[in-house]
């Protein structure tokens, strides 16, 4: 039985000397993308954005990480196992949906309160944010899971794949 098919040469696949420009650029903008994703999560209630988009942005950052460093790079950035992130997100969303029942309200009923942290101004926190965080985590977990399932450790593919 033949082993796994070797990656097709058409696919963008860095060789051992990885494209320097890409690697450097990603290193420069990676944190900014993460911040952008988190920003979208928090801004979502009043401006374009939201947990879903935020999660997707983080997912895009993950994919950049993967392209430059392979699976180990992704795994080292997100030490939590993908299914844990996925499950935690789902539980968070479900809890936000159900807690109002315990408090005597309707399912998913929301409240909000205002904070005045120094330097930022008024910060309105709504409990829908918790729900959105759940969505956010589910999307991130999903992307990570997909990379775990279909992605590769480049070194392993390049060294081991051709050898087997």
């Amino acid at each position, binding site marked *: 039985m033949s082993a796994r098919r070797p990656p097709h040469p058409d696919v963008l696949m860095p060789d051992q000397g990885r494209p320097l420009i890409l690697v450097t650029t990603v290193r420069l903008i990676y944190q900014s993308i993460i911040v952008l994703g988190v920003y979208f999560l928090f801004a979502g209630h009043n*401006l374009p954005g939201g947990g879903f988009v935020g999660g997707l942005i983080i997912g895009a950052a993950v994919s950049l990480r993967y392209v430059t460093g392979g699976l180990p790079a992704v795994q080292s950035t997100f030490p939590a196992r993908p299914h844990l992130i996925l499950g935690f997100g789902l539980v968070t969303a479900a809890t936000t949906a159900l807690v109002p029942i315990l408090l005597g309200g309707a399912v998913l009923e*929301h409240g909000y309160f205002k904070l005045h942290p120094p330097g930022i101004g008024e910060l309105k926190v709504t409990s829908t944010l918790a729900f959105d965080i759940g969505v956010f985590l589910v999307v991130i977990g999903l992307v990570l899971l997909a990379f775990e399932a279909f992605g590769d450790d480049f070194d392993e593919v390049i060294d081991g794949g051709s050898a087997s």
Partner: protein
Amino acid sequence: MFALLLLHLVLGVGIVAAGKLLGRRGFAVAALAPLATVIWAVARSGEVIDGEPVTESFTWVAGLDLTIDLRLDAFGLVMVALISGIGLLICLYSLSYFAADKPGVARLAGVMTIFAGAMLGVVLSDHLIAMFIAWELTSVTSYLLIGNDDTNPRARAAALQALLITGAGGLVLLAGLIIIGQEGGTYLISELLADPPSGSLVNAALICVLIGAFTKSAQVPFSSWLPGAMVAPTPISAYLHSATMVKAGVYLVARFSPMFALDGGWRGIVLAVGAVTMVMGGVRALRQHDLKLLLAHGTVSQLGFLMLLFGTGNDHIAQAGIVLLIAHGCFKAALFMVVGIVDHGAGTRDIRRLHRFGPGWTPLRIVGLISAASMAGLPPLLGFIAKEKALGAYVDYGDFAGGTLVLVVIVVASIFTFAYSARFVLGLWGVFCEDGDPVDDAGEVIAPTHPEPHAPSFGFLAPAGVLTLCTILFGVFPSLLDDLVAAATRALDPGAEPSHLHLWAGVNTALLLSGLIIVCGLVLTVLRTPIEVGQRRISRSTAFIPSSEDVFLAILRGVNTIARVVTATLQNGSLPIYVSIIILSITLVPLGAFADDIGELPEFVESPIYIVLVALIVSAAIGASISRRRIAAALMLGGVGYSMAGLYVARGAPDLALTQFAIETLSTVLFVLVLRFLPAKWEHQTPAIATPMRLAVAGAVGVAIFVFALSASNARSDVDEPSMSAAQIVAALPEGGGKNHVNVILVDFRGWDTMGEITVLVVAAAGAVSLARTGRRRGEPGPEFEEVLDEPIGDEQLEMADEGSVT
């Protein structure tokens, strides 16, 4: 009443759960339920017979207006008496019939209790839907009871056949009941009776109801399951297949006839089917050697008789039906019990093996004789009263079209009934016993009797004896039943004028016909051997005519073949074909409906940028369809998505555009990840038609979605109420506390939807990942995708099933 039904259910489940702990004592526990019901029925019988039905109502699903309305009227009382009275006796009988150590006996007792509860549900429900649910429950429990011996493939096959036939009939019945309920404006039988609906739709519904009733009551051509069901233990056969479940169809016809007999084809259909069934069952019973099968075919015949009596809509004839219902319950249950005792004591039921056993068997033979005489319609027994009443009613009131013909059929079939009753008695007396080793039709030697046949104990025979006493008592003093039968007749038809029951009504046409039946029956009995030989010869020469059994099997095979062909065509392992079928059906099927709703066309080009973006979308889509490289196709799809996002920007929908951009980016990356495992090109393995096909499918989907969008934007044009989306936009800030309407709707107003969506995401992720991991496990090379697909699915299971049915 509701408490009683619940008692049956709880007790039944409890007995099944207790299982081995109880063994056959399960029947002693099970007896509590019918005992309680009998006591309750007797306590309430006074007011019910006086014409004041006991009612109870219990709201079940308030939103759907589903209630469980229970109603005990006098006809229901007759049925309850049969179900619970005979049920009680069957429980006592089973205590002697079953050996304690046999596995599955307690389960039998438990399921039988649930069945009895379901049967009570059928006759006590005033609400059509509640009745239907109980009706289906009787089918399911009957399946479990027939197939209780799960190691016996014949039992399993017979159980399945009974379930398929009665279940299919049940579905048709449901359709009929719903139409009647909707047309009549009420689902309550008692209200329908006062104001029955009519019209061509109702006539169609009535035919559906009749099909349901015919399957349940084993009428031709649905009768094949009833003799098959005789593989069940005899107490079960005695209870389900003679006294109760098969009466459900008769019950339904009895309830509906006063309302609908004159509508459409109801009376004609019932009479035709009942007549054929009555004659066929009688003729078939005449050539049986197995006493139980003889009774089974006799039951089919009697059910046909009951249909003839209840299906006319005439109150006098229905009154005769009620008497026959009681008489049949008494004698048929007793006869089945007798057969069970013979089987138990002698080890066979085949009359060619039964010789004349010793004096200890005399009480059994007498019980069998009296019950069989009642079946044959001999005075002074209850069966005689019933038959006399039926003949008299048909003579006096059968003046409708075909009435005389039906009377002739009843007389002829009654002659057969007499003959097979006599055959039963002679068999019991050992007249058919053959020396040597008699062989059956298949040429196999019939199992001999026990070397030392043991006579039944008193307790074993007592339940059958009680029923026989009823047969005699009500036969000699029919006035005891007078009030009950009269009240039951009035319950069926409020305008009825029931007459009194007499043992001796003077010399009249009915009596003369009875005499004729007895004389002809005696002649048939004397000529039994040539008749049997002749029947055998006829049945052999007409073997090419498919029996209902053959038809059933042919249908079963046909369904399997169709399923195989459909599966092989649709599920042929080609992913492009799967996807094409799925998207074509979800887009093209509703297309016609959407196309009707297109109103005014909106302004398509609001800005020149639209033209550029649309041109990009179209060319990328065409490129994706005709591309020969997978990776190029994936990138083209990404191009479609990005251009789409551009359109959102142009339209001023930043949220949508943002999401679209992010999704496109990620899905393109994921595409690339997965495509690495597939060949780069696909043209060498696809036929030339593939590209035009892809274009056509893509074009069809595009057109369908376009039409859908047009009709959706127009959907509210003829609705006056303000649209919900407008209300949500207004409420977003004050109620949702957010300025971004899209987000507020997603996480707040429609938060439950989002909850569902992320749950689906999680499930889909788990599924995709585990599928991917089956294909490639770390460290060990897994099977390739193609190999996984080539492996025939389910072959092993099929083989196992085949082996199972052979052993």
